[in-house]
């Protein structure tokens, strides 16, 4: 009889085989560093729960050390990555998890994943260091939980970006909700409970559609090959053969979940609330990395799995993105809470990201990916800056604060710098992505077009308006502080400078020398675009027989000319 050997026995057996499979992965230790990072974060995170409650300092330091260690490991990964073939999934570790459904524990990176992992591991130690002064008052003594959830979050994020199995991706994707739920719910502001629940439910409600689509695509793959697998490569390869209507449904399913996560207008409504209520570290990671899960998902799954549907609906999605850009920017302008303003600006910025993705060309997608990273750095830094103000004045209202340039010159310098990065000043990092995404939309021959670029560019103007409005109120103007703290606050201390400086350097370096990163994106993007090229050649062939058709003709002519 099947399955008669007793649950416990089989369980132990499976654990043994899984461990053996992990240990047998080719390529020695370096090949196994990626799962190591994720698991290290998870285990150490949960282990923090056992730390003594009184020893806050120890907990903080432990968290810092672990996250720094993970950052170092990720650097090792980056250095052992073969940059000559960035499109290939490298350092792949595979182990069977659920053989019945072909679910595997498989992690590996290509250049896009690797950069995003680096972003995560880079931001996390800084965030942790930045949060050292945050847990005061009622929250004193709860450092354990705080750092526990931060580390678990980091582990989940690494797992998402490294996952080469759809289910593993989805696990990471959903698992990020739990730590953030607690981070917002326990350590947040006045409305923290509402915000946490809204964040959780909203994202979960979106992702159930993604889940359905994922299962459907996996099922479709099964009908083609006869084996269940959730291997991303295999599924992506098979998915292109879906019929047009299937693709439409799959795209819809994937899109709903990822759009909520991005968040795209009009499902962005959870974000401002979550951000305003979240503690600084939560906001940093939320804006810096978590939102990118949405665009990353779109890039990894929606684009390659439903190419025909994407071609058909890219314009519609583009409209949402562009409307979101302008709409959120306008809203930013009327905010009174600095943090809310930055939160809404994220909505606006991520609109560019989505727009670039659906331009379906190198410039657009490459721009979008680099925008993910750049937005993570600059917006993360802005949230840190706002957090530093909040720990000093316990307010984030622009009406209460003014002329801080006089009181906190160092802080103001950083603030202005990151604002410029965020507003897309050339030479700083924000510009690269913003420009390339608009350029992609402008020059795309597959979707979107000039009008999309034109309206998106309005975002540039509005972006300047709201950011300068905020700077003008907070950094500049006559000095005004809440009376309680007037004249009592001091400028950034060494620790805070130490948190912001690496971010500033990264912003500058990525603004002036993004080419290596961009070049490393080309190959993976080519992989995604190859599906579209195939469709176009197919259409061109059929069009060649019959009458000339719009998109393919344009593309074909260009190709004739360029070589």
């Amino acid at each position: 009889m099947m399955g008669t050997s007793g649950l416990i026995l089989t369980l132990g057996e499976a654990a043994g085989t899984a461990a053996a499979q992990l240990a047998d992965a080719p390529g020695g230790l370096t090949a196994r560093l990626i799962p190591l990072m994720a698991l290290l974060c998870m285990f150490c995170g949960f282990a923090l729960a056992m730390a003594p409650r009184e020893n806050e300092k120890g907990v903080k330091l432990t968290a810092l050390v672990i996250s720094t260690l993970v950052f170092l490991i990720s650097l090792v990964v980056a250095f052992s990555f073969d940059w000559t073939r960035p499109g290939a999934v490298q350092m792949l570790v595979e182990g069977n998890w659920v053989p019945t459904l072909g679910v595997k524990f498989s992690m590996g990176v290509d250049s896009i994943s690797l950069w995003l992992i680096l972003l995560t591991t880079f931001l996390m130690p800084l965030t942790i260091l930045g949060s050292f002064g945050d847990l005061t008052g009622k929250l004193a003594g709860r450092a354990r939980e705080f750092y526990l959830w931060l580390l678990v979050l980091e582990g989940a994020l690494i797992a998402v970006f490294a996952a080469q199995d759809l289910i593993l991706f989805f696990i990471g994707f959903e698992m990020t909700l739990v730590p953030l739920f607690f981070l917002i719910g326990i350590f947040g502001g006045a409305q923290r409970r509402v915000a946490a629940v809204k964040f959780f439910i909203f994202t979960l409600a979106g992702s159930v559609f993604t889940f359905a689509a994922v299962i459907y695509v996996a099922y479709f793959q099964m009908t083609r090959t006869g084996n269940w697998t959730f291997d991303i490569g295999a599924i992506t390869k098979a998915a292109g053969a879906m019929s047009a209507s299937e693709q439409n449904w799959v795209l819809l399913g994937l899109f709903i979940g990822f759009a909520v996560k991005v968040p795209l207008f009009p499902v962005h409504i959870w974000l401002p609330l979550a951000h305003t209520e979240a503690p600084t570290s939560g906001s940093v990671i939320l804006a810096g990395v978590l939102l990118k899960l949405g665009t990353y998902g779109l890039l990894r799954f929606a684009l390659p799995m439903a190419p025909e549907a994407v071609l058909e609906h890219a314009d519609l999605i583009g409209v949402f993105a562009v409307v979101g850009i302008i709409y959120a920017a306008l809203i930013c302008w009327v905010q009174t809470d600095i943090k809310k303003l930055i939160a809404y600006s994220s909505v606006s910025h991520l609109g560019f990201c989505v727009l670039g993705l659906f331009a379906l060309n190198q410039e657009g997608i490459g721009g979008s990916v680099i925008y993910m990273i750049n937005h993570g750095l600059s917006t993360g830094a802005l949230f840190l800056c706002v957090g530093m103000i909040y720990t000093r004045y316990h307010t984030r209202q622009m009406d209460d604060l003014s002329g801080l340039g006089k009181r906190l010159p160092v802080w103001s310098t950083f603030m202005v710098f990151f604002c410029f990065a965020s507003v897309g000043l050339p030479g700083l990092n924000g510009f690269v992505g913003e420009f390339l995404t608009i350029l992609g939309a402008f020059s795309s021959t597959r979707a979107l077009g000039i009008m999309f670029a034109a309206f998106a560019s309005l975002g540039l103007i509005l972006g300047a308006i709201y950011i300068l409005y905020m700077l003008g109120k907070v950094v500049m103007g006559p000095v005004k502080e809440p009376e309680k703290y007037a004249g009592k606050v001091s400028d950034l201390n060494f620790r805070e400078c130490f948190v912001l400086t690496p971010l500033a350097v990264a912003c500058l370096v990525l603004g002036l020398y993004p080419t290596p990163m961009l070049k490393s994106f080309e190959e993976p993007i080519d992989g995604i675009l190859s599906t579209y090229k195939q469709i176009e050649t197919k259409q061109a062939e059929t069009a060649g027989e019959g009458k000339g058709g719009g998109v393919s003709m344009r593309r074909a002519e260009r190709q004739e000319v360029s070589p």
Partner: protein
Amino acid sequence: MMTLAADPLVNEMGAKIAGLWPELLLVVAAFVVMIVGLSPRTALRQSTFGITFVALALAGVLAAFSPEQVTGLAVYTKIGACVIGLLLLLALAELPDELGQNLKDGEGRFDPQQTHRGEFFGFFLLSITGVMLCAGADDLIWLFLALELTSLPTYVMVSISRRSIRAPEAGVKYFFLGALAAATFLYGFALIYGATGTTYLSEIGEAIARDGLTPLATAGFVIAILGISFKIAAVPMHFYAADVYEGAATPVTAFLAFVPKAAGFLTLILILDAAGWPVFAGDGMGGDGVVAVVWILAALTMVIGNVMALLQTNIKRVLAYSSIAHSGYMMVGLLAGPGNSVNGVSAVLFYLIAYGVMNVGAFAVIGLLKRAGEEAETFDDLKGLAARRPVMAAAFAVCLLSLTGIPPLIGFWGKLYLFSASISMGYVGLTVIALMTSAVAAYYYLRMIATCYLIDPDRREQAEISTLPQRSLALTVSAGLVVLLSIGVGPLFSGADGAANGFGKAETSETAKPEQGNGAKGQSSTEKGNWDDERLTSAAGR
């Protein structure tokens, strides 16, 4: 399909008994417990728990070494029932003492009329025996008896589980409506028998394959399904669930949420199997009706279960409605049947065990909360739990998140399995409903977690947390199992898959299916004409 030969004359008593050792052991243990429970000696009375525990554990081991002829389904169920039975037993262990029946320390005078200890554990064992028997059933009569064996003890357990006036109320509702439902599915059984002329499931299956689902058979199956949906607390037989779950003592509620449900699902699997998984009957075989009914019931069950839970303030009622909703999810898997690539039956079996484990954890926490000696069961009582008892809260949260279906916890795997099965059978719409309702479900599960973690305890409002070692152990073990099974989910998957292997797999493998279909059709077309003759010959054979 079934390993036993179809002809009852070949039915060797010995072979059958050999497959029933675990059940026999439990029945014997039940009688022993009942007798020992009446002993005036405290030590002996207190040994009831030990006896029960050992018996269950032994039964599990025995089940694991079942002889060949026992079906995979039965083995899986028996082991699962024993494991979860052990968990439930841990949760239940202190219940008789809580009732204050002057048994614990032998203080006061011994009054046999006042002690339910023996009955409690005895009935517990009998009910579990019923589930085990369900899984091995090959006959409608056996099925009926097994179902009743599962249910009847639970009526008593509910009624005597608490001193509160709510317990008898729950008991009366449960018992009367249970009788109504029993009559209903019995009526369905009668019609099935009428339509096919036999009570043997395998023969019913053959008859259906031969004649298709005649209207009479369809009616029989549908009525049977409706009746059994009482056991699984599915629409339209779900009304009792919330009241009964609320009224019964919490550990008993946990018991109710698993044991009758498991029996119900096993029965459904068996009779749907006999019906030839109406899905495949498809065109001309008359299965549409059954499919439509199950589809609608599954959808309604999920929707009603989840939305009603939103309105509750009593946690037990919330979990009751959530239990209804989970039945709905499992019905989705049931509808998929053996499926054409993912076995929906094995998904259901998997989910049953998964649900059992996380369910015990969730109820155990509530069982530990007290207010003035009575059960504390509102949301307010959860406030600040995390601050006071972090481990307990964490275990609770793990179970609830698993119930929500947050990956990678076991509830997620269960849903993945169920919904893969249903999507691969083309029930995309139903799956989407399921997923949407599970997002709704997230709200109330999250509300519980949020109450534990996010609301600061108010000294005056705090509920007491009793220190019941065994119930705490039940909580810890089930939370631990949730985590363990979540990570090492593969074996449970293959176990469930093996258990469901008997269903449909062979038929659906690419080569076999068309042949069978043709064969069945051909047969039915040729033999429909001389139905009467055949009837006569078969009668003569008897």
